[in-house]
């Protein structure tokens, strides 16, 4: 009996909650990436609004450089340090129109070229809990313990990646990923968590679309 309940809980974790996602792309210019060229993925400044979570940036970094159509990704911190202070939150250019001025600063273009970075991808947005409810009670006694009830909540993950082409010194376009998820934990003796991993789904969607967008194979 206990084994069956544990297996049910494990299955719940694997199944996850209910999710719906939407992916949108806006292209302003043709893209493509040559052998030896790379991209760098950075979080937008928290000085200007909602900066994406470090965990999400790490996730996109990992997923963009995996799979058959993977891209070369330059290490983000090393790149920001090499261009210090020009990509710090307060100093980073706010639009692609400021790219020529950034690249004209002494040493900046040389350091970018030395790292083979062709595209900067700026990610902003966040994951928020939008609503929730229900109740669950747990008790333990001499004869054993258990829980009874149901609790649920909804998460919204909304992220935007803006792609700047450093070679063309222009805004190549953007990719938007929105994921809505409902997580439920029903409990009849043991809780059965059905968790919607919205941030992870947004990361996966965003990374896949970025690979196609930058390689120019999305259209």
């Amino acid at each position: 009996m206990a084994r069956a309940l544990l297996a049910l809980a494990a299955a719940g974790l694997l199944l996850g909650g209910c999710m719906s996602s939407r992916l949108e792309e806006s292209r302003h210019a043709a893209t493509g990436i040559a052998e030896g060229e790379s991209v760098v993925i950075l979080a937008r400044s928290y000085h200007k609004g909602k900066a994406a979570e470090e965990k999400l940036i790490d996730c996109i970094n990992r997923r963009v450089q995996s799979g058959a159509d993977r891209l070369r990704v330059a290490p983000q911190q090393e790149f920001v340090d090499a261009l210090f202070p020009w990509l710090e939150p307060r100093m980073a250019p706010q639009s692609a129109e400021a790219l020529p001025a950034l690249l004209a600063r002494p040493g900046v273009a040389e350091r970018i070229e030395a790292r083979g970075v062709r595209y900067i991808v700026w990610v902003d947005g966040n994951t928020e809990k939008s609503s929730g409810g229900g109740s669950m009670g747990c008790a333990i006694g001499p004869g054993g313990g258990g829980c009874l009830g149901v609790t649920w909540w909804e998460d919204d993950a909304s992220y935007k990646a803006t792609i700047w082409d450093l070679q063309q010194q222009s805004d190549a376009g953007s990719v938007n990923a929105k994921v809505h998820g409902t997580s439920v934990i029903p409990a009849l003796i043991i809780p059965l968590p059905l968790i919607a991993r919205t941030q992870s789904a947004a990361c996966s969607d965003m990374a896949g679309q970025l690979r196609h967008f930058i390689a120019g194979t999305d259209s």
Partner: protein
Amino acid sequence: MPETANTRQSSIRAVAGRSALLGLVLLLAACAASVEPGQDFPTPLVDRLPLRAALHYPPALLEYTHQEQDSGQRKWTVQLGPVSQRMFDTVFGALFTTASRIDDIAGARQLAPAPDVVIEPTVSAFELSTPALSGTPHFAVWIRYQLELFDAGGAPLLSWPVTGYGQAGTGGMSDEASVERATLLALRDAAATIAVELPRQPRIRAFLDGEPVHDEP
């Protein structure tokens, strides 16, 4: 020697006493958090000013420690002195043709060649915001430095407040690591401001152009 009931009782009391003491120490440790950022700073990619600088770090800067108790009764200690010193060494080392440390302002006169400017930074404010206080999932740190610049003769050249802000999420990190990260980001923010904005200060521009910059008495 055979163990008697009394010695057994004493041993039990000693063990219980030690356990209670250990528990108390662990409890106190859980209620206190100390942060001392240890990272180095990247060298700013900026043009050097054609000036020699002497740097005076007063004890108030070198020993600066911020302490506060947050709303969750946790006592925070942030050691800001050593990391501030490393930040200023890196920034001024990149901004000036030379940047030499002096023990006091008068020591600038003994330097050869003589410095063009003497810089004395201090911390004038430090604020720590915790998730419990802000209702956000971030720790935030705000630092304000006061930079006093003098010419070679000791006359005031520029009095300049510089602020730095940093925030770090709590996801995947301990609270101490988040505060350390937020402090480091605030220091980087201040360093970036100094590296970019100091050469643009009107009084520094005028000084470089050889114009009079001292206030009328």
